[in-house]
């Protein structure tokens, strides 16, 4: 019932928005894009000096999609943010922005976002709510504890106001033990606890992958979802430049139980059951200690092969000591302690791990959380303030927690959406989207990102800090609070600027400030070897049954993104499934149970069970069942109606009315931490079917055995080369033998000839480019059923190919987009000249001329053309505000495809002409290129011999996919480089 209220809440907010936007001309424009009556638009009375109608302006800000705190630029049209891009100057993200970060834009224009404060589901005014809460607090004084429950708080200002609020409560409110409890949906508590043991302070080190020559990852998906993927991806890329002689590249070993994105890029990948992980690390520790000449004895029950692997790895790590890095994603504290020991022995602390300027991206403490939950059950808590987090969804036994929450006299929830927790709160105090308000974030000690509002608030929302201040009895606008904090606490931490205003302006302009680490933080003490050795002695749990592994997906880091249609429809880079979570089983395990893709299986653990469709996943350990978190959130109810309605259409949501199912219910508490791996009691076939919406149904470049022409079993679409072979190869341009043409090319490109080169070795498949393209080019979301029918609309997709079989599978990612062929097959066959070639080498699609014969798509060898099978939804007027005004919204029945972001090319050319100079290389970037964290995509003018793209064309690794067709693609690829010990044999794809 409160649901319907918020649903209708969209209307008024829109009108409000229009009023506000009027002052920036947006009224007329927005009115245009949502067919609103003209009179709703208010003409500008005075022209704001920094906004020119029809011209985008960029604001530096900081991403809030997760706690990584990446810097970003907000592209804003007439006061209307339409795209989020990476900030190239940002010290952490360096211009990259992940899929989730870019997709967060839709959160701003979310019709179902909370717009008004409410009490017991009834809309209400802030004044009344505040008075109410203060009264309740007054009544409850001394009647029990007060807790503020949050996720990791990276914002110094919020942290400060929480502290202030608690202080106020302790002193004036008689809540003697008022406390702040932080937890993380994807907890890394064990790492912090381990460092508390070994280093005396609860810190999360900052990992410098760029400085590491040997990287060993243990169940840490650092390129995908772990801590700070964008930062890590960029650093990882820096660590393997393939320049110099011999070509330099870090050596990456990944030890994991399921095939993660990181594993897919590893030079050497070992598949180990989760419960063996600790033993493997222990063995590695022993081996490293032996290398270090300080042998220690430890229990060791490893298979010879694994033991051998550990010794080899230990040697390699030791040789690169000080330039090596061991990362561990385990939630088992002793295991983490062992990991710390290894890094310590390898002298990596201070080199590749920084604990003096630690990462603040995870601060949650599972121990505190456990205590809080216990107190809640015991009814010791009188008042609970939940700030921007959703424990009822995130934590196991949500029902139990819900029951407990109902008993708490005062529950206040600051949320963006009416999620599982907000539904239980007596008071719901919506806070604005981070694009609507001021804010800051210190993701890594010493790097403070700043947020500025880029649009007037769409609803009667209020920043958390304002609310806290109000409840603490000292109401103040967020802007002032923020500035005060910066003046008092940030300004002193740097020496460059003395004058606050100047410092502030620069920080707002840059979107971040680099300062000294917080002086009043406890410094880590020397490494405590004794504790570490104790951990080594502790026996590892030897469990030989099936293990359930709960992981988070690149496209769906946690439940807070479940509202986002772009992310829901983003194919998982490994499994290629959209709109669902599922139980990954290794091919053998699936075969044993007689299961295939889409068969529903029942996964039972001690205190719970889930029925999920199966996805057969090569590269996964046979005793592992992997299920993604972040699905089955109540906010995904909204997708019941998504997708074109027609006779045979099937709903996007499952029987539960939601997208996927919440696997957090199966999380386990163990040794004081939340565990993402636990024993499976029973795994049974239900006989039900739930066909998955896959964007890629055939997974390898190897043809089906009975259909493969002898000697042609593998298609050379993705090509590989061994590192040593690359070293040997002279850097001469690769001459693909060009077949003679039947006619002279009488179509010169006088000015520009646009081209692209994609480095398959750098590409991690993180899919940031896919979302970038979707946002830039108004690519519609089509819903689960349409994807199942192979009608996804993504202009840019990432093809993922396996080679090899079982656990030893190798993965290649190949971004595939329109290749803008010089002799494009699609153009010749179009009867109405709807797709033609420009004199800048672009393959252009003329939407309004297209009649939709689909001949072009049939004739496209890369199958990158997308057809508007239906009139795809643009009913959500509010969401339409996210549309890019520079790009046509395609109508039903026309073909569409990648345009090389022609609108950006035109804009750049005009700008250049206005400046009266030529377009310089790198001045124009395609959307996909802009946000690629790995800088894998290079775009430019091939006519300009000096341009980066032209130079890369002469790289020995450069090749064209399907070059033999002689259609002259403008997109080239750089071969994957395999850095194997048994190197040189890596010619699988050649």
């Amino acid at each position: 019932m409160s649901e319907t209220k918020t649903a209708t809440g969209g209307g008024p907010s829109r009108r409000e928005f229009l009023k506000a936007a009027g002052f920036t001309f947006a009224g007329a424009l927005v009115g245009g894009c949502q067919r609103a009556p003209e009179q709703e638009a208010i003409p500008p009375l005075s022209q704001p000096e920094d906004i020119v109608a029809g011209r985008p302006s960029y604001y530096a800000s900081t991403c809030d999609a997760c706690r990584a705190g990446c810097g970003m630029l907000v592209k804003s049209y007439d006061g209307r943010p339409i795209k989020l891009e990476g900030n190239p100057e940002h010290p952490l993200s360096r211009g990259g922005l992940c899929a989730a970060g870019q997709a967060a834009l839709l959160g701003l224009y979310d019709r179902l976002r909370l717009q008004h404060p409410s009490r017991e589901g009834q809309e209400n005014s802030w004044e009344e709510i505040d008075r109410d809460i203060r009264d309740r607090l007054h009544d409850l004084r001394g009647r029990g504890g007060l807790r503020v429950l949050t996720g990791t708080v990276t914002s110094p200002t919020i942290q400060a106001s929480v502290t202030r609020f608690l202080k106020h409560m302790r002193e004036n409110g008689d809540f003697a033990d008022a406390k702040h409890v932080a937890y993380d949906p994807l907890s890394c508590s064990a790492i912090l606890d381990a460092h508390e043991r070994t280093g005396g302070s609860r810190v999360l080190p900052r990992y410098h992958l760029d400085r590491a020559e040997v990287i060993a990852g243990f169940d840490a998906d650092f390129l995908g979802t772990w801590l700070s993927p964008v930062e890590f991806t960029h650093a990882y890329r820096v660590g393997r430049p393939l320049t110099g002689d011999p070509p330099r590249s870090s050596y990456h070993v990944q030890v994991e139980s399921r095939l993660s994105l990181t594993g897919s890029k590893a030079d050497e990948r070992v598949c180990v059951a989760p419960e063996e992980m600790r033993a493997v690390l222990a063995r590695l520790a022993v081996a490293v200690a032996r290398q270090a000449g300080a042998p220690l004895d430890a229990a060791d029950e490893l298979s010879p092969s694994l033991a051998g692997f550990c010794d080899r790895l230990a040697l390699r790590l030791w040789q690169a000591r000080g330039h090596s890095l061991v990362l561990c994603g385990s939630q088992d504290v002793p295991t983490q302690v062992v990991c710390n020991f290894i890094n310590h022995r390898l002298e990596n602390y201070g080199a590749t791990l920084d604990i003096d300027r630690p990462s603040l991206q995870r601060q949650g403490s599972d121990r505190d959380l456990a205590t809080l939950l216990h107190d809640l059950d015991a009814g010791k808590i009188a008042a609970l303030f939940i700030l921007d987090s959703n424990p009822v969804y995130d934590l196991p036994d949500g029902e139990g927690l819900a029951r407990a929450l109902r008993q708490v006299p005062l529950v206040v929830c600051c949320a963006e959406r009416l999620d599982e927790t907000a539904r239980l709160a007596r008071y719901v105090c919506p806070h604005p989207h981070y694009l609507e308000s001021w804010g800051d974030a210190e993701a890594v000690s010493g790097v403070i990102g700043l947020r500025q509002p880029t649009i007037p608030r769409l609803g009667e929302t209020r920043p958390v800090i304002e609310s806290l201040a109000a409840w603490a009895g000292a109401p103040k606008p967020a802007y002032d609070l923020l500035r005060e904090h910066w003046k008092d606490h940030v300004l002193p931490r740097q020496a460059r600027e003395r004058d606050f205003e100047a410092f502030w302006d620069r920080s707002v302009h840059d979107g971040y400030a680099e300062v000294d680490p917080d002086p009043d933080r406890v410094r880590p003490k020397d490494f405590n070897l004794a504790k570490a050795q104790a951990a080594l002695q502790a026996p590892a749990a030897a469990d030989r049954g099936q293990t359930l592994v709960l992981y988070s997906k690149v496209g769906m880091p946690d439940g807070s993104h479940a509202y986002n249609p772009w992310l829901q429809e983003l194919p998982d880079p490994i499994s290629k499934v959209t709109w669902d979570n599922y139980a990954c089983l290794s091919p053998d395990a699936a075969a044993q149970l007689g299961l295939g893709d889409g068969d529903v299986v029942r996964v039972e653990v001690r205190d719970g069970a889930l029925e999920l469709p199966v996805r057969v996943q090569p590269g996964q350990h046979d005793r592992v069942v992997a299920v993604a978190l972040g699905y089955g959130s109540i906010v995904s109810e909204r997708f019941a109606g998504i997708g074109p309605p027609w006779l045979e259409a099937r709903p996007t949501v499952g029987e539960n009315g939601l997208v996927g199912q919440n696997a957090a219910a199966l999380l386990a508490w163990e040794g004081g931490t939340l565990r993402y791996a636990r024993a499976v009691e029973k795994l049974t076939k239900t006989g039900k079917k739930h066909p998955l919406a896959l964007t890629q149904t055939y997974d390898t470049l190897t043809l089906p055995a009975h259909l493969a022409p002898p000697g042609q079993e593998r298609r050379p679409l993705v090509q590989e080369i061994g590192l040593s072979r690359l070293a040997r190869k002279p850097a001469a341009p690769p001459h693909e033998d060009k077949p003679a043409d039947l006619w002279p090319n009488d179509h010169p490109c006088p000015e520009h000839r646009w081209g692209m080169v994609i480095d398959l070795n750098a590409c991690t498949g993180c899919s940031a480019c896919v979302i970038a393209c979707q946002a830039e080019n108004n690519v519609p979301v089509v819903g689960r059923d349409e994807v199942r029918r192979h009608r996804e609309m993504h202009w840019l997709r990432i093809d993922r190919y396996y080679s090899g079989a079982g656990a030893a599978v190798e993965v290649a990612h190949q971004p595939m987009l329109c290749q803008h062929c010089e002799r494009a097959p699609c153009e010749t066959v179009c009867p109405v000249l709807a797709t033609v070639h420009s004199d800048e080498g672009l393959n252009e699609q003329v939407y309004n001329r297209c009649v939709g014969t689909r001949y072009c798509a049939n004739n496209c060898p890369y199958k990158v053309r997308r057809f508007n099978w239906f009139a795809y939804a643009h009913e959500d007027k509010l969401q339409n505000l996210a549309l890019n005004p520079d790009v046509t919204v395609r109508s039903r029945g026309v073909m569409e495809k990648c345009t090389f972001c022609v609108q950006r090319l035109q804009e750049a050319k005009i700008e250049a002409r206005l400046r009266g100079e030529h377009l310089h290389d790198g001045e124009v970037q395609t959307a996909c290129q802009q946000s690629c964290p790995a800088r894998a995509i290079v775009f430019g003018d091939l006519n300009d011999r000096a341009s980066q793209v032209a130079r890369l064309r002469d790289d020995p690794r450069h090749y064209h996919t399907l070059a033999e067709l002689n259609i002259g693609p403008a997109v080239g690829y750089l071969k994957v480089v395999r850095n194997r010990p048994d190197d040189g044999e890596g010619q699988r794809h050649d």
Partner: protein
Amino acid sequence: MTEVYPPLRQPLVAGDKSLADVTQEVCAPLERRSTALWWLAFLAALSLLALGVAAVYYQVTTGIGTWGLNRSVGWAFDITNFVFWIGIGHAGTLISAILFLFRQRWRTAVNRSAEAMTIFAVTCAGLFPVIHMGRPWLFYWMLPIPNTRGPLWINFDSALTWDFFAITTYFLISLTFWYVGLLPDLATVRDRAKPGWRRRLLAFVSLGWNGSYRTWHRYETLYLLLAGLATPLVVSVHSIVSMDFATSMLPGWHTTIFPPYFVAGAIFSGMAMVLTLMLIARKVMHLQDYITVRHVDAMGKIVLATSCMVGLAYAIEMFSALLSPNPYEQFTFLNRAQGPLGWGYAIMVTCNVLLPQLLWLRRFRTNLAAVWVLSIFINVGMWFERFVIITTSLERDFLPSSWADYAPTSIELATLAGSFGLFFTCFLLFCRFLPMIAIAEIKGVLRIGREGPAVEPRDPASAEASALAGVSRLDGNQGVKP
């Protein structure tokens, strides 16, 4: 154009008929009330048509997404049906034009309905390229018409453009050819009709034909000219249809053998359809004397011949693919035969190549029931040929990442059914309201293989008498009103 018929030649028309008998028997069904059987067939056809209309309406209003197509398979049922129906059409032209040029006089019995079949088939075919468009209401953009965009003309390099011109030309020429052939018979029917709207209508459409020999004389020339034009036309049309595929890049489509292969296939399937229809019509319309076993026998031979050509094409295609250095080509054909749609390939080979070999046996050729059953199999087989060629190549082409299977939706099935509905509705109306047999031509061949004059002169006396009477009156200078 004098021809000498050896007296021993067996008659083309059985049952020793006089000219008047021919007129009477052919026109009888048109003047009788329709039989219950006809009504039954007509209602059945009509309801199929209605189903199809509903499906197409839904598809055009909702979106082409109501078909089972996807990003990889852009054509399937639509173009399959298109090629299938065009193929059906070609037999009509073959019979009326090519056999005419080859002086195959036996064609006269079947050419009229074969031509009718052509027109209806081409109508069905013509619908698909239009409704398969994403925006069918803009189909006229395929024409080079002056417009506000420059004017922007069309792409004459595209096989679809060629196709559009070919189909239009083919339809118009076939229609004219048919109508010209119909003229004298319309006059015959007109002159038998009782005064009333039907007669007035016939008078209007028969353009005042009165059997003048000066007209007949030019008519013969005209007919020859049209036949001469239609013959290369029919070859060009299906060659161009095949170029929709042959000029593309897709393995399994990009094949130089397609034009002859498709033309042979077209005539093959068309002949089968002619047999299907004729064998029913001769029973229902009591035309056994005109469509004799001999006709079936002759058509059986053509079917056999074309079947062998098609078989040869299949073999060469597979052979050259497997021996080609092009791995994609090789894979496509292995996939066609053994891939997900292998069963379709099996049906196509069985129905189009293996079963027709029975026609070597004279006993089989002259067993009408058997031939009819076979003709059905061939129709099915030829539909699958097109389906297999189009779909298998699209389902699995260059990039394995884009391989996607195809399955038709209810809407597509309904549309296919609808096209049959349209075809049979038209054909039944034709049987009901127009002479199914070319009366004038039959009369021309009536006496082939018969000794002496078809009609014995009346006994001299009466002849004298009437003649004298006439003259006497002539002497009296009075004209006689007949």
